[in-house]
């Protein structure tokens, strides 16, 4: 980022003034930092909405730890480390939320996923990519609308094993879906 590097040459002075309570310098600095933070966040995250969340979180973090910056040192590594940590946290949190949603979907609404499934041909294509056992479970639970217990009895597995297979299948389907959208 040579352009950012050039612009960032003034940032240590602005931050030093901000640490002394200069509101104008602080406002200028944070506004100047936003494009650099966005560029750094985009290296880790492809989802535009999440990138904007990370920018906000990074601005808040910079505000909280502004006293840790030493104006004799370059400022970009300091900003980059904060942005990187916020981006990783955001990705982790999103991952956790998705896991919970998947669990809820498996436990409470097995039929909804089938209703909101893509076109039949497309679905067959996606299912064809799944390993055999995962495909059988998805067909039993989501297409033939069997309960988890019925699917478990039919395939001689425990209910928790069926849930686990179903969970992995949903993750794979999502992955295939994302790849399909990109291509």
């Amino acid at each position, binding site marked *: 980022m040579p352009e950012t590097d050039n612009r960032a040459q003034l940032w240590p002075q602005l931050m030093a003034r901000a640490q002394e309570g200069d509101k104008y310098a602080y406002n200028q600095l944070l506004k100047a930092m936003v494009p650099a933070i966005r560029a750094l966040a985009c290296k880790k995250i492809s989802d535009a909405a999440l990138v*904007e969340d990370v920018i906000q979180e990074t601005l808040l973090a910079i*505000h909280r730890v502004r006293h840790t910056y030493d104006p004799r040192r370059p400022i970009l590594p300091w900003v980059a480390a*904060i942005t990187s*940590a916020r981006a990783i946290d955001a990705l982790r949190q999103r991952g956790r939320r998705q896991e919970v949603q998947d669990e809820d979907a498996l436990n409470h609404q097995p039929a909804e996923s089938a209703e909101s499934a893509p076109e039949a041909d497309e679905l067959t294509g996606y299912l064809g990519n799944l390993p055999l056992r995962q495909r059988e479970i998805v067909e039993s639970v989501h297409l033939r609308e069997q309960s988890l217990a019925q699917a478990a009895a039919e395939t001689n597995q425990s209910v928790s094993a069926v849930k686990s297979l179903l969970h992995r299948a949903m993750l794979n389907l999502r992955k295939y879906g994302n790849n399909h959208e990109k291509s």
Partner: protein
Amino acid sequence: MRNHDPLIDRLTESVKPVQRVWPTPWRVAGWIAAALPCGALSSWAFHTRLTDWSQPGAAVALSALLLAFVIAGSSVAAAFTLSIAGRKPVSLYRLWLLAGLWLTLNLFNLSSSVPPASAGRLGEGIHCYLFMLSASLPMMLLSVIALQRTRSLHPAKSLALAGCGSAFSSSMLLSLCHDTHLHLIDFSMHLAAGITIIAITVVAGRRWVQLAQA
């Protein structure tokens, strides 16, 4: 693209002068100056005798004591450095090397010395364990307070390093009122105390040190 100017304007309105964090060597010096006397005071109840440095094995024990002091200072310095965004501690590899050397010295002491009558009793080891825990309590508190000032992007690592500093500092204090020779059970309890101190520091301090809770 979202407009972040309203947030920036809000943050600007709340900005006040802040005091910059001291350079790491000063912070470490301050920590040592406060932690060692506090540790000595908090473990006062467990002081039974002063080390007799005329005993055989004193040279090895003294070397281990000095090494523990160096490791404690280096660990705390690494913890403080790591807690500041964008900075990396000088070398964790060097720290591991010193810790390995300290372990080797103690194992050498373990194998070469003639144990006293009380050595090998579990009670002696438990006494050492409690001594180290009580000595490290104020040190852990000081570490968390110091790290809370800067917060950390790597709270677990920073706290583990700070806990390591407290463990070696309390081990150093223990060496001042301990036989110069070690016994296996005794030394195992020293190690167990060190691990306990690190674990307590990480678990108890995490909430106060992580940036998200600022």
